[in-house]
């Protein structure tokens, strides 16, 4: 009897559950477009689905936006694996952006050192909720939320007090509310394009997407193939049981948040070292870190899944930009929210899918379980009889 590998079939079912959520979510989006503006609904929906691949330039935009999104999604997913909710990705992302830009502009360092700075900055910020959780038992969600705001104000304060960082230091300009364009301040800090810009005819594309994909693969390897990753997952499933088994849960909680922070920080570095974005002094938290949460959830926290889900989210966001003027791009957020809400029903959907597509293997599995139960029952009976005899 041919038996599907259990983890394989499980992975397939969660992938199919995610795809089902995506399909239903997109239909919700189509219905929404009909309600808002029926005459343009179909063309609009077509734009959402096709714009990302329409020209190489649009594809470059998809990849450009996907790289920080992928890193933030990885950050959230990695923390989820240890049972922690890293809602602080946006603060770590901001910190990463700030550290990368300080290294690039104020210290005039090349891009790879700046990226390292970004990771360290994000890691330090990630460590704080980890330490508070492990040592003081303060909920990491609250610490992260508090430090999102603290970071935002601290970064604004620092940039305002570092005259070199601002646009008006490098060029005659009255713009004081954003950091200097990297091409003026330090061209060596701009991420290399690797020839992709001429290939895809776009200024946006750079090697950031490769950095993000490599990070995803490394995280997958760590989680699947190392003792450390195993310990992290064990803490995520049951902190007390893992402690009982001799795993240092406190250390793992802190390390998990440090790595999650480093990933978000790297995301901030990758985005702001692309040379196309300038950090603007803002009064609201950046959305990129928060968008890492749906990316991670859609991928069921699987690092390889994060690659796909971030590409998908970025793809329909680029499609959403093309919706204007008949619709506003926030419609895309509604679609993504619907998809995430549906993916919360993963359990239910996995049940359906198992019934629909994997009936055979499921029956096999059931037969096996039944057999095992019978065997166990038999053993128990034997034991009982033994006891009676004794």
């Amino acid at each position: 009897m041919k038996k599907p590998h259990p983890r394989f079939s499980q992975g397939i079912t969660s992938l199919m559950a995610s795809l089902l959520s995506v399909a239903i979510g997109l239909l919700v989006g189509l219905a929404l477009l009909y309600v808002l503006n029926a005459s343009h609904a179909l063309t609009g929906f077509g734009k959402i689905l096709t714009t990302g691949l329409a020209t190489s330039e649009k594809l470059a935009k998809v990849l450009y936006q996907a790289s920080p999104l992928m890193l933030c999604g990885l950050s959230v997913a990695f923390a989820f694996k240890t049972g922690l909710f890293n809602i602080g990705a946006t603060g770590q992302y901001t910190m990463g952006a700030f550290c990368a830009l300080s290294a690039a502009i104020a210290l005039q360092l090349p891009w790879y050192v700046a990226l390292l700075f970004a990771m360290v900055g994000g890691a330090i910020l990630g460590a704080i909720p980890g330490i508070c959780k492990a040592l003081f038992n303060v909920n990491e969600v609250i610490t992260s939320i508090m430090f999102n705001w603290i970071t935002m104000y601290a970064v604004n304060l620092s940039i305002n007090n570092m005259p070199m960082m601002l646009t008006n230091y490098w060029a005659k300009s009255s713009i004081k509310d954003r950091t200097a364009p990297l091409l003026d301040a330090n061209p060596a800090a701009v991420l290399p394009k690797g020839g992709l810009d001429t290939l895809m005819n776009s200024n946006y594309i750079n090697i950031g997407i490769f950095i993000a994909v490599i990070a995803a693969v490394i995280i997958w390897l760590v989680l699947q193939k190392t003792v450390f990753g195993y310990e992290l997952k064990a803490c995520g499933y049951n902190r007390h049981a893992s402690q009982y088994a001799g795993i240092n849960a406190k250390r793992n909680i802190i390390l998990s948040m440090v790595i999650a922070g480093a990933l978000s920080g790297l995301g901030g570095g990758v985005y702001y070292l692309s040379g196309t974005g300038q950090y603007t002094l803002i009064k609201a938290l950046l959305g990129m870190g928060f968008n890492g949460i749906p990316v991670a959830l859609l991928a069921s926290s699987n690092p390889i899944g994060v690659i796909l889900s971030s590409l998908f989210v970025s793809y329909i966001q680029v499609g959403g930009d093309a919706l204007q003027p008949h619709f506003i791009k926030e419609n895309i957020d509604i679609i993504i929210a619907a998809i995430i809400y549906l993916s919360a029903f993963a359990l239910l959907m996995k049940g359906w899918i198992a019934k629909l597509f994997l009936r055979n293997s499921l029956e096999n599995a059931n037969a096996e379980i039944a057999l095992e139960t019978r065997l166990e029952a038999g053993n128990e009976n034997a034991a009982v009889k033994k006891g009676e005899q004794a």
Partner: protein
Amino acid sequence: MIFADILSATVLFAVPLLLVALGGMFSERSGIVNIALEGIMIVGALCSCLYLRYTDDAGFGANAPQLHMLIAILIAGASGILFSMLLAFASIKLKADQTIGGTALNMLAPALAVVVTWAAQGQAQTTILIPKWIRMTQESLGMAQGTDFLSRLLFKSLYLTAPVAFLLLIAATVFLYKTKTGLRLRACGEHPQAADSVGINVYRMRYLGVAISGFLGGIGGLAFTVAAGSGFQSTVAGYGFLALAVMIFGNWKPLNILGASLFFALFKIIGSYAGSIPFLPQFDTVKSAEYIYLMLPYIVTMIVLILTSKKSRAPKAEGIPYDKSSR
């Protein structure tokens, strides 16, 4: 005089925090982690502001301002309940992960608000302006306009949401501690199996907990919008998350939550008034020193949380979907 202003502004901003944190408390006490408070606030604010806008445009709102404000409050609460049922359905009926459902709703609400604002007011309209007549002034209550300390303290920025919040706080405390339902609700958050074994319907109690959080959260959204003062712009600026912090800071108890929200709001207001408070250091050598004070409430809250964490105790069964058949 500045102290009257500071105190009055503190109360103004403490009201949304208090209401929403109380809402979160009911949900968590019943066993459901309600991270969707931010989204619930936005939906409550959206619906009630649309109503206020409509009464003003139609011209009859200003005739009976407080009556329409009261209706707006009820609309905010009702829409909050409806929206929170999305979370309740997913996390109680379908036993879904509560964080995922909450995150989805937090994403949905602001996007929905932007889309509805456009649909209701036409393109490029991102703000729903709220009418001026909702403020309770001394004239509107039939009193003489005073300029003394007390009238400045009470009437500088008084909206119907403040007395309503005060009444709701009392009602919440009584309900949670003095009624049978309140006791049952708390039991479901601590040990649902035990509650079930004595005949309490855990699912119904959890629906109730989430519905109350939706009601209070929705009103909190309106309270935030009137406090922010510049109309509804599809955001509540992270107050839903701050309310979660206030709830934990208040140790899941109504009166502690009142203290925590006043404390947080006070530091927040000190931050924005820092330039005009004489005895505070002004950091003249640092550019944009206002950021130092803006960070203050968050830092102080962190310190207090770390210091009091030993005593902090969350409801034991929160976040775990209740399954009748599991042991």
